């Protein structure tokens, strides 16, 4: 007969406000098998855990049910406490009476009945729980970092500096990401490239970092400590080992009028190109869509002029498999596009701003390229339409952001600051010019951030006007800005020479597809989800995968770098052990009943089911049965639900346990 102990937590008042915890404790105390039941203010607190441990020993409890918050929150905590008291941790279950009960119901009577039933259900379940041994697996002490922007670079450098090998994968021909595109950075106005490029070079030279640029993640298999990652290296058409980076091919390429994406399509590049002069690696890539050789078969100038003979038109995409123990996802962000969007898209565009129709209405990133010393105008702020210096410039914040109607309800976090920076750069570069900013709120939390914004207004002459702009239209060579100053309560009209729109931050295109390959979760915008918004902000719910930077949500550079280092620290913690303990939630085959149909093998996504021969003492084959490799099994239980003879059992989720729960209700 089991001696079950039930502990009902008040969670301060979070539970006890709507659930009569004393009544629940009293009622479940009468259930058969329950030897002890009580309620306590904070079970997760130190005294709460002590109470739990003491009671297990004093009452000689065989099983424990803690009725408190979600097991996703504290199951580990209580299982650890139970283990410390000498019980197998898997003899402890949690009943979720907070998230699933007290927080979602107001009626005390209803909530109390529901809580009692939930606890009763877990009592029946725990009776069927079995002692499970911990399973250890080896850890591959190499890490994969996906994305070569500042987040990926920082994480890769930190992990590599700790002495572990890093595989860094970047989709573009060069690492650097968006930060390499920026001119200056807030709130210090130091030049982005000046602080970025040394780090890029460090990555290139680091003996522990294996860099794959122009490459993408094809497939991720395995689990924490033991991932197998297949990387697709796209055909660069230039041999990285022999290319010296002399650049002759680029100067000779006859295709010179291809809009350079790195310069927001303002500047032009050749068909064989590096995206920007400081690119790492300094190896060009042939843009096959625009290359004359690939389009018509004629040309091949680059190949002819290449001294080392590095140009290789025959090169093909290749697949490489890298075994790693941990993965840092740092895929960054993409910018919202302002124009009208195709029908059916969850995100809508702005017709009223004429972006794409009025040449001098540009987005913030384009302004960055104009302001950048290495940009297409050499750092001069010039109008795309006629190359003239804009004497009146208008910035509009919150384009896409905080616009539920457009499909994005969040704040992009960095636009207030970069717009303030833009006004300063403009003020420094265009003498006698006037910058105006239309804004709803100035959101400047961060070290020295508000001071920076105030400086833009108080010392750098920016005129901030609270109120959104209704629309823009061309009038001669001016752009009429129709806004309002809500502090005055009247309409405002400005005839601007240039308008800069501060566009929202969105996840990279295809972020959802990568998440599906990795098996991590993401929100409705495709930002990746952390395991806990406050206490586990760097980890994914999927063990062994960590997040860094704006792929998780809008972030500025310092925050991104902090998170990247935090992710690196998490990886190092994982790598500090040779063996990894994992939850013993794995499937087992009852060989006696197994008929060897291998339906389980067909449905197993992990290839964990093997065939095992059963022989008698004489070595005669009796039958072939299924065998689940516990090191490979991920514990989904699909095999069990599939097995026609009910001979596979997932430890921790056995039929017995489930049926006991159903019957309890």
């Amino acid at each position, binding site marked *: 007969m089991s001696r079950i102990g039930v502990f009902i937590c008040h969670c301060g008042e979070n539970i006890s406000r709507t659930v009569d915890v004393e009544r629940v404790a009293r009622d479940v105390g009468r259930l058969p098998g329950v030897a002890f039941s009580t309620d306590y203010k904070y079970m997760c607190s130190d005294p709460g855990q002590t109470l739990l441990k003491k009671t297990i020993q004093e009452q000689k409890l065989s099983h424990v049910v803690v009725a408190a918050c*979600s*097991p*996703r929150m504290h199951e580990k905590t209580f299982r650890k406490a139970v283990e410390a008291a000498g019980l197998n941790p898997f003899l402890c279950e949690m009943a*979720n009476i*907070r*998230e*699933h*009960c007290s*927080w*979602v*119901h*107001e*009626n005390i009577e*209803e*909530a109390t*009945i*529901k809580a009692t*039933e*939930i606890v009763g*259900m877990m009592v029946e379940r725990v009776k069927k729980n079995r002692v499970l041994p911990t399973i250890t697996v080896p850890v591959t002490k190499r890490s994969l970092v996906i994305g070569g922007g500042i987040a990926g670079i920082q994480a890769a450098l930190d992990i590599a500096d700790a002495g572990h090998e890093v595989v860094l994968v970047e989709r573009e021909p060069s690492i650097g990401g968006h930060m390499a595109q920026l001119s200056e950075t807030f709130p210090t106005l130091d030049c982005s490239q000046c602080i970025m490029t040394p780090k890029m070079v460090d990555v290139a030279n680091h003996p522990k970092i294996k860099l794959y640029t122009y490459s993408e993640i094809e497939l991720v298999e395995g689990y924490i400590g033991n991932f197998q990652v297949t990387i697709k290296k796209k055909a660069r058409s230039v041999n990285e080992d022999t290319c010296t980076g002399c650049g002759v091919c680029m100067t000779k390429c006859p295709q010179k009028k291809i809009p350079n994406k790195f310069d927001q399509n303002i500047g032009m590049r050749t068909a064989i190109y590096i995206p920007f002069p400081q690119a790492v690696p300094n190896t060009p890539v042939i843009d096959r869509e625009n290359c004359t050789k690939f389009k018509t078969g004629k040309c091949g100038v680059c190949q002819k002029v290449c001294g080392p003979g590095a140009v290789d038109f025959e090169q093909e995409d290749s697949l490489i498999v890298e075994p790693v123990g941990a993965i840092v996802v740092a895929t960054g962000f993409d910018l919202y596009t302002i124009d009208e969007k195709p029908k059916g898209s969850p995100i809508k565009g702005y017709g009223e701003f004429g972006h794409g129709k009025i040449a001098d209405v540009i987005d913030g990133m384009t302004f960055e390229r104009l302001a950048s010393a290495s940009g297409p105008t050499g750092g001069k702020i010039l109008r795309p339409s006629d190359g003239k210096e804009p004497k009146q410039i208008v910035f509009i914040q919150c384009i896409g952001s905080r616009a539920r109607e457009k499909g994005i309800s969040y704040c992009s976090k960095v636009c207030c600051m970069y717009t303030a920076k833009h006004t300063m750069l403009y003020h420094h570069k265009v003498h006698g010019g006037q910058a105006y900013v239309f804004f709803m709120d100035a959101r400047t939390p961060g070290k020295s951030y508000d001071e920076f914004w105030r400086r833009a207004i108080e010392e750098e002459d920016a005129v901030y006007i609270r109120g959104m702009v209704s629309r823009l239209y061309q009038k001669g060579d001016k752009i009429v800005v129709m806004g309002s100053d809500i502090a005055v309560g009247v309409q405002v009209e400005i005839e601007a020479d240039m308008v800069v729109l501060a566009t929202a931050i969105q996840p990279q295109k295809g972020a*959802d597809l990568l*998440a*599906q390959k990795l*098996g991590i*979760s*993401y*929100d*409705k915008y495709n930002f990746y*989800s952390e395991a806990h918004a406050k206490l586990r902000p760097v980890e994914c*719910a*999927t063990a062994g995968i960590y997040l860094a930077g704006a792929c998780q949500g809008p972030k500025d550079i310092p925050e991104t770098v902090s998170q990247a280092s935090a992710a690196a620290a998490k990886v190092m913690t994982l790598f500090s052990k040779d063996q990894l303990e994992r939850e013993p*939630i794995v499937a087992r085959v009852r060989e*006696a*009943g197994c008929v060897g149909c291998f339906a389980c093998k067909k*449905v197993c*996504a*992990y290839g964990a089911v093997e065939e095992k021969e059963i022989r008698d003492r004489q070595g005669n084959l009796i039958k072939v049965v299924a065998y689940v490799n516990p090191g490979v099994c*991920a*514990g*989904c*239980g*699909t095999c*069990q*639900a*599939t097995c026609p003879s*009910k001979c596979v059992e*997932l430890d921790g*989720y*056995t*039929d*017995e346990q*489930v*049926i006991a*729960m*159903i*019957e309890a*209700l």
Partner: protein
Amino acid sequence: MHLAQQQHTFEPKIFAFVCTWCTYAGADLAGTSRMQYPSNVRVLKFPCTGRIDPVFILKAFQQGADGVLVSGCHPGDCHYIAGNFHARRRFAVFRKLLEFVGVDLNRLQFSWVSAAEGGKWVEVVTDLTEKVRNMGPMTEFKELAMEEQWSGAINTPELKEAYNAI
């Protein structure tokens, strides 16, 4: 809302079989967001919808459930790569079987609720509760006392004997 609810003469019993990664987390989110929904639902957590055996649904109906909800990750988002696809196929067939047996399929609902969709969880649970409430109690299965056949436990002498004979 509650006053209105208490006027009902019939409170249905709803079982929800959910996966731990998406829908359970979504229901947690509904809690942390303090959303409100009817208290009729009882949640059973599984690692994956792929683990959910149709037998559990039959068992639930037999045990007095008036409605059953099965919910997991959106297609493509399965934490275990493809468990929800297996579940989807399995339940597509199972629904046919139930229909054949004569169970009103309105009592059984499948949905995808992700970890970020607290609001959707509330919506799904509320809608199902209201729907089943209007349908009235489920009586068909309660009369069938065929427990041992459905149970995974080998708890009758006959079964034990048969088991040992293998």
